[in-house]
C-alpha cells in the first residue's frame, strides 16, 4: 500500500490557498473464484486503485476522479475538479469536513493476515466443498448455478484541507451458492451465503444448508389467492427492509422534500417494539469502519427509539444546512461519486423472543423467504411498498406449503406501525444492514 501513502503526500503538496480540498484515495485487491460442477469456471485476481477529488472555491464544488494513482493522473484530476468548480451554483454550506472533537473508536484490527496468507488452492477447495455440501444436503438438488468464493482487501485514506487525515483498512471474505432443486418438470432456485473477516470463519455448512433449504422448500409452490395477512420476514428480507427504511431518513432526502419522514422528529412513526440503530463501529459488521467517507469518526446513532423518530442521517453539508452536527454518516459511491448521508451499519434492535417461538405463536401468516423488485416497487417519496415475494404458509405455528408468484403491498409508514414482533436472531452478513426474523401484520398479498 506504498502507493496510497505516496498519493497522500503528493495531494497534500498540491493543496492551494483559497480553496477547500478533499481527497479519497483507495487501493484494493480482490479475488473471486467461481466453481461449476466442481471445476473452476473462473478465477479472477485484481488490483485496483484510484482517487476522488473534491474542490470547493467560493461556495462552488467541483469533483473529479482518476482510476490510477500515477502522479500525472492525480494532477489532471485536481485540475479538472478545480475547473468543474467554476460552474456550480454558489452554496454557503458547501465545504469539507472539520474536526468535531469525536475521536474514531479504537477497533480491533480489520485486517486479516490469516486470510491473505491462505493459499489459493485452499480457497478453491472451499468453494468446491460448498458445492459438494449443497448437493449432499438433499437429493432433489440437481445442480448448482455456481458455487463461489470471494475476498476483498482494501486500504483507503481521506485527507482534506482542514487537516483531517485518516486511514482505514479491512479485509473480508465470503462464500455463496446458487442451488437448483428439481422434481419432475419443476425447478426452483435458492441462495445461501456465509461471510467472515478471517478465512477460517466462513461457515460453508450454513451457506449450503441455506441454499439447499431455500431451493427445495419452494418445490411444489403454488400461487396463493389474494388476501390480507401477517408476514414474517426472514432475516435477509428484514435486512432489505431495514435498508429501505433507514434510507428514507437521509437528511438529503428530507431537505430536498423527498422523504415522508420530514418534520416528524419526536413523533411516533413506528410500533413501540421498534428501535432503529445505525452503528458502523459495531464489529459484528464485517465492513465495520472507524471513520465515515468524509473522515469523521463513525458513531452509534439511534434513529428510531421505541417507535419515536429521533433524527436524520447527516454528512457535513446537510448538517451545515440544518445548523446541526454531522452524524458521521457520509457515504461515497466509490471514487467517482460525491458523498451523501445515509445508513452505514443499521439494524433494528433484537427482541427477546426466539425465531422459533415467534413462528410457533402465530395463528396464520406467510413466512417471506425472499422479495424481488425492491428498486422498482418501493417508492421512498410516497412510502408505497409493493414487491414480488415467495415464501411458506404458516398455520397454527407450523410451516406449511410453499407459495410463489405473489406480491406483498402496503406502505412503509403502515408497515412500521404494524410491526407485531421483533425476534432475537439478529444476523450479520455482508453489507451495511443486518436483520432478524420480523413479523408485520396486515399486509395485502396479491395472487390469484
Amino acid at each position, binding site marked *: 500500500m506504498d502507493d496510497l501513502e505516496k498519493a497522500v503526500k503528493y495531494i497534500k503538496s498540491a493543496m492551494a490557498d483559497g480553496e477547500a480540498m478533499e481527497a479519497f484515495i483507495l487501493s484494493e485487491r480482490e479475488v473471486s473464484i467461481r466453481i461449476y460442477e466442481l471445476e473452476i469456471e*473462473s478465477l479472477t*485476481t485484481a488490483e485496483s486503485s484510484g482517487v476522488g477529488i473534491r474542490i470547493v472555491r467560493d461556495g462552488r464544488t467541483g469533483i473529479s476522479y*482518476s482510476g*490510477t494513482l500515477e502522479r500525472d493522473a492525480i494532477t489532471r484530476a485536481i485540475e479538472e475538479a478545480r475547473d468543474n468548480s467554476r460552474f456550480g451554483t454558489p452554496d454557503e454550506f458547501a465545504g469539507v469536513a472539520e474536526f468535531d472533537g469525536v475521536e474514531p473508536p479504537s477497533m480491533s484490527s480489520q485486517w486479516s493476515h490469516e486470510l491473505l496468507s491462505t493459499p489459493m488452492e485452499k480457497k478453491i477447495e472451499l468453494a468446491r466443498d460448498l458445492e459438494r455440501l449443497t448437493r449432499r444436503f438433499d437429493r432433489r438438488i440437481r445442480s448448482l448455478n455456481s458455487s463461489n468464493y470471494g475476498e476483498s482487501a482494501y486500504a483507503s485514506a481521506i485527507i482534506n484541507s482542514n487537516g483531517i487525515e485518516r486511514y482505514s483498512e479491512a479485509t473480508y471474505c465470503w462464500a455463496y451458492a446458487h442451488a437448483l432443486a428439481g422434481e419432475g418438470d419443476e425447478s426452483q432456485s435458492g441462495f445461501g451465503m456465509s461471510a467472515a473477516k478471517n478465512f477460517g470463519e466462513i461457515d460453508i455448512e450454513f451457506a449450503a444448508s441455506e441454499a439447499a433449504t431455500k431451493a427445495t422448500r419452494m418445490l411444489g409452490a403454488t400461487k396463493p389467492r389474494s388476501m390480507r395477512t401477517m408476514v414474517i420476514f426472514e432475516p435477509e428480507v428484514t435486512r432489505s427492509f431495514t435498508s429501505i427504511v433507514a434510507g428514507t431518513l437521509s437528511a438529503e432526502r428530507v431537505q430536498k422534500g423527498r422523504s415522508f419522514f420530514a418534520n416528524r422528529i419526536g413523533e411516533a412513526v413506528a410500533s413501540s417494539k421498534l428501535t432503529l440503530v445505525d452503528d458502523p463501529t459495531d464489529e459484528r459488521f464485517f465492513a465495520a469502519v472507524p471513520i465515515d467517507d468524509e473522515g469523521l469518526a463513525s458513531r452509534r446513532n439511534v434513529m428510531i427509539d421505541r417507535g419515536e423518530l429521533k433524527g436524520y442521517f447527516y454528512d457535513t453539508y446537510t448538517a451545515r444546512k440544518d445548523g446541526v452536527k454531522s452524524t458521521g454518516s457520509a457515504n461515497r459511491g466509490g471514487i467517482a461519486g460525491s458523498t451523501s448521508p445515509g445508513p452505514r451499519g443499521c439494524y433494528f434492535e433484537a427482541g427477546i423472543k426466539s425465531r422459533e417461538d415467534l413462528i410457533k405463536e402465530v395463528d396464520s401468516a406467510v413466512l417471506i423467504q425472499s422479495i*424481488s423488485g425492491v428498486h422498482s*416497487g418501493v417508492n421512498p417519496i410516497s412510502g408505497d411498498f409493493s414487491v414480488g415475494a415467495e415464501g411458506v404458509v404458516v398455520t397454527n405455528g407450523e410451516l406449511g406449503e410453499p407459495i410463489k408468484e405473489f406480491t406483498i403491498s402496503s406502505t412503509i409508514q403502515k408497515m412500521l406501525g404494524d410491526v407485531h414482533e421483533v425476534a432475537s436472531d439478529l444476523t450479520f452478513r455482508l453489507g451495511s444492514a443486518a436483520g432478524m426474523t420480523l413479523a408485520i401484520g396486515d399486509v395485502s398479498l396479491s395472487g390469484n
Partner: protein
Amino acid sequence: MVDADIVERVLRSALMSGGDFAEVFVEEKATFSAALDDGNVEELSSGVARGAGIRVRFGETTGFAHTADLSERGLIRAAEAASAVARRSSAKTSTVALSQRLFVPVDVDTIIATSISKDRKVELLLRLDAAARSAGASIRQVGASYGDSFRRFLVANSNGTFVEEEQIRTRISVSTVAVGDTGMQGGYETVARTMGFELIDEIDLEELARTAANRAITKLSARPAPSGKLPVVLNGRGGGVLFHEACGHGLEADHISKNSSVYTGKIGERVASPLVTLLDDGTVGKQWGTYRYDDEGNEAKSNVLIKDGVLVDYMWDQNQSDRAERVSSGNGRRQSYAHLPMVRMTNTYLTAGESNPQEIIADTEYGIYIAQLGGGQVNTATGDFVFGMTEAYLIENGEITAPLREANLIGNGPEVLRNIDAVADDFSMVPGTCGKDGQSVPVGCGQPTLRITEVTIGGTANG
C-alpha cells in the same frame, strides 16, 4: 492504445503455461456528468479510468486478471496471474498472429462532448428545470442530469482478432416531485443514445421535462392500484423492459448451458403467442444498446430469437459459442476492463403487429393500461418476474380512466408470452441499464402497444 507487438507478446505470455484461448482487453473511459437539483447546479464531475483485463481459457476454466498498469511489464504480470489456472497442464508453445488492426472510430458527424463547453451543458439543465416547473404549480422539486461518456477499447485474442473501437454515449434525465393534498408523487423521464452531443438537436428537451412533470402531477390524483389478476395493455413507450427481463435473460446461452433457464432445449418449439416475434439487435440506429463490435471483438448482429411464436435461437458470447461450436451472435459484453465478458443483451424488442392501439384499449372492458414500467427482476430458472408500474391507469369499459398509484406487477415470462392476444402497429424503444452478476451495461428495450390477457397486479385496493 497499446502497440500490436506488445499485445502479441502479452498474449504469448498468457499462453505460456498452456491454455486454449487468451485475450487482452484494454480500455480507457472518460465520463462527465452535471446535475441540477432544486434550481441549483450541483457539482460537476468528470474523470478517467483506464486499465486492462486479461483472460486465459483452459478447457472450461477461465483465469482473469486486471490491472491499471498499462506498461508492458504491468500487462505481462497480469497475463501471468491470469494464466495461473492453466499451470496444471503441460506447456505448449503458442504462436499468436494478430490480424491487421481493425479500427472502428465514432461516426464522422459525431460531436465529441469534450469539444462542447461545460457552460453549454449546464445551460441544458436550466432549460429542463424551467420547462418542468412550468408544467404545473404542484411541481415542487426538479432534478435534471446530463452525462456523457467516451469509451475507447482494444480487444485482441489468440484467434487473431484485433479490434479497436470508440463508443460515445449521452444521457439526459429529469425527475420531479409534485405535492398535493394526497401527499408527494415522483415522475421521471430519460433519453439516452449511443451518440454525441448532436443528440441535443434531435430531441425536444422541453417536452422531455414536461413528460417527467406530468407523470408526477397525474399521480397526485391516483388511487390505489387493484390487487389480483387483470388484463394489461402495455404502451410501447413503457413496456419493452418487460420482455428484456421476462424473456430476454432466459435466452442468454450461459443460462441455457447451465440448464438454469426455462427455455433450455426448447429450440423449434412454440414458446409464445403467434403474434410474438422477438429480436435482439445491436445494430439498431444509435439506440442505447447499440455498438459496432462487442467487447470480445465480434460484430454486432440483428438476431431473431422468437419468430411468430417459435423459439429460433439464443444469444451467444465467445465462450458459449466456442463450447457449442458455432459463431458468436455478438452478445459478449462487459461493464469495464475489470469485468469478465458474458452473454448480454443489446436492444431487445418485440416487432410491431397489425392492430390499432386505440382499438386494443376500446376492446378491453376492465383492466390496467401501463404507460411506463419501472425496473424489474427475473428468476431465469422459473421465469418468474416482478416489475414496478410507474405510470398506470385503469381501463373501464374500453376507456382509460383513473390514474393509479405505484404498484408491482408479477408474473411468469413464458406465460406472458403465450397470453399476448393483441399487438399494435406502433413501436417505440426506451433506454435502460441492465444488471447481471454485478455488472451493468446500457441496453435498449422496445415494443409496440400490446395486450396480455392476465397479469397479477400487486395493488392494495380490493378486487
